């Protein structure tokens, strides 16, 4: 499963077309408009502020962070569902930000998305068969065994094919998410952007979906951008991980690098706050409890964006933004005071 991975997310990589997907300095700002007649732009929500990522064929990049960190917006901006404010997104060497609409549709055949909210992403007036058949029809692949393919897809995601004429409201939230996954798989894409694909599912069902995603990856060589907040799921499924905070990648690297040697204070806090389903470990853990909430992305702090909640913050953090570079930790970290903290959640601490 582990790929011989390229240099992880590096901000200034000028090689083109080496990776399946290359995101460089992606910026996504949303205007805040005033309430007056002219609806003048009075501010910017800086949802994504200069994110760079690479994705290779067949690998899984986990993008993890809390709500509002810009991980979902990044996913959508990659697919051009939001037009990025700045930056570049290259798919197989093609620059997507400048691609004509028609060519973009062809790209979407290979690069699909599964959305976070299964309630909002399925048309309530369409039976499930039609929902899953729609991408096949749009891309002219329905006539050739379409209905059989729809049945197969339903079965693949663990739904009863006989329920295909039912409407989305007749399914539970979890089942609806499976319908969304079936729809994304319909065109046998090369890469999937999975935006919190399992957060709506019960754990026993979630495990089945994760196994399914792994099977599909083994079978078809799919690449995943796996966007999630669940740290244990991300650890399980990812080859590489990027940790985001307030629109920026703060730390990235091979999965084990991040989980065994987290070096950014935010990663350390995040890992220490994640509940583990092991009472013995829970009983012994020292939690780093962060103060306060994430600042508003409309008015992010100067310098390092994490400094307002960071216990290591000093003057330099307010004036100088730390770059995402390797500071001797073996992987890029955006912190002036990056320091390895070995095994925040070390199972070896627990001697039975």
């Amino acid at each position, binding site marked *: *499963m*582990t790929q011989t991975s390229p240099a992880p997310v590096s901000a200034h990589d000028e090689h083109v077309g080496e990776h399946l997907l290359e995101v460089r300095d992606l910026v996504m700002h949303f205007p805040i408009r005033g309430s007056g007649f002219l609806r003048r732009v009075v501010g910017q929500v800086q949802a994504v502020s200069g994110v760079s990522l690479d994705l290779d064929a067949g690998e899984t990049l986990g993008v993890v962070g*809390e*709500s509002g960190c810009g991980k979902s917006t990044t996913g959508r901006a990659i697919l051009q569902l939001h037009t990025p404010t700045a930056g570049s997104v290259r798919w197989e060497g093609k620059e997507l930000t400048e691609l004509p609409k028609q060519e973009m549709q062809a790209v979407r055949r290979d690069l699909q998305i599964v959305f976070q909210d299964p309630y909002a992403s399925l048309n309530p007036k369409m039976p499930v068969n039609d929902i899953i058949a729609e991408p096949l029809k749009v891309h002219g692949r329905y006539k050739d065994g379409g209905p059989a393919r729809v049945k197969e897809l339903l079965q693949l995601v*663990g739904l009863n094919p006989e329920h295909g004429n039912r409407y989305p409201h007749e399914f*539970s*939230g*979890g089942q609806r998410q499976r319908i969304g996954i079936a729809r994304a798989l319909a065109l046998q894409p090369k890469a999937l952007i999975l935006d919190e694909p399992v957060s709506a599912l*019960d*754990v*026993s*069902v*979630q*495990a*089945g979906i*994760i*196994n399914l995603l*792994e*099977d599909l990856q083994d079978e078809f060589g799919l690449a995943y951008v796996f966007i999630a*907040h669940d*740290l*244990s*799921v991300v*650890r*399980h*499924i990812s080859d590489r991980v990027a940790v985001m905070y307030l629109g920026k990648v703060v730390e990235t690297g091979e*999965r*084990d690098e991040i*989980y*065994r040697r987290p070096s950014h204070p935010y990663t350390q*806090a*995040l*890992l*220490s*706050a*994640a*509940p*583990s*389903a*092991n*009472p*013995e*470990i*829970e*009983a012994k853990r020292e*939690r780093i*409890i*962060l103060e306060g*909430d*994430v600042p508003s992305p409309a008015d992010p702090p100067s310098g390092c964006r994490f400094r307002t909640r960071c216990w290591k913050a000093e003057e330099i953090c307010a004036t100088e933004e730390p770059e995402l570079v390797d500071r001797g930790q073996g992987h890029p970290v955006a912190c002036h005071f990056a320091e390895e903290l070995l095994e925040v*959640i*070390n*199972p070896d601490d627990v001697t039975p």
Partner: protein
Amino acid sequence: MSMSDPAHPEDATTTPPLDAVDGRTSDELLRVEDLTVSFPTDDGLVQAVRGVSYSVREREVLGIVGESGSGKSVSSMALMGLLPKSARVTGSVYFRGRDVLQLREKHQRALRGSRIAMIFQDPMTALNPVYSIGDQLAEAVLSHHTMPRKKALDRAAEMLDMVGIPQARERLRNYPHEFSGGMRQRVMIAMAVINNPDIIIADEPTTALDVTVQAQILETLIEVKDAVNAAIIMITHDLGVIAGIADRTLVMYAGKPVEVAETGPMFANPRMPYTAGLMGSIPSLEDSTNERLRPIKGTPPSLISLPIGCAFEPRCPLSTAECLETEPPLTETDKPDHVAACHHWQKLAAVDDPTAYFRTESEVGR
């Protein structure tokens, strides 16, 4: 809201509301006996809760874990008397010896929010958007105590301070939308403990929150619980949350408890295949083995047409003919205080890794 059960009319008369003692042990705070809840629908009777019995001791944290539709929320709503009128509720809920379900609405209301408090998942819908936080907290006090409003507001500020909201006094004038999600949940906790309850029912209190905020809220909840000496019933689907805070855990499946034990022993040695299946479904946060997860095949049964035997039988790798015929009751297993509803718990006890029964074919083939 009256839930007197026509099948047991004698309960209403033989259970005096104030001082009945039903052989409870000294530190037993709440005892639920054979609670059932069903909802008539066009498709048939939905048996959401099918005989739940458990007890909560003073100051303990009881975790109730289960997947969606397992009846964990409905059963706690029933003991608060918060279900819609269409719900049919039977059974008994003894709070300090008196059966809450037989109380008149007026008496029930006196318990709700004062002796038994509740924290809901979504603080935005649980708080009224058009009243200030101070008004709402003061109302919680004034509906149970007669005191000047100013004193109630003092109490409100004191509580906000206790749950870690800075400048509590000034923030009383704020409205719910001016608080972040985590802060709102702190307000909910403040409201729950403002009358020094004996028991707090927390229904997925951190599910809507981020992990770093969840850690803050759980810590606050435990601090506050200790400050007011309350017990907590923690309802969640998150086994990680349970592992961190629950003294004892009750696992629900298809409307019934299927395993009850102290949390540590249960997680280490589950005695019900469903619990083992849940354990096998969770990826580990602690190590990076590329082991396959071991999901439970299938989906929970429809609560309208349940199988005759064990409700978990269709999904269970250990099922036999016996499981098809009779539904196993909760019985004691190899350890005291560890009960499970399974005919074959010995099989789980006989192996080191009970989740191995849930190995998928692909894993066996590897």
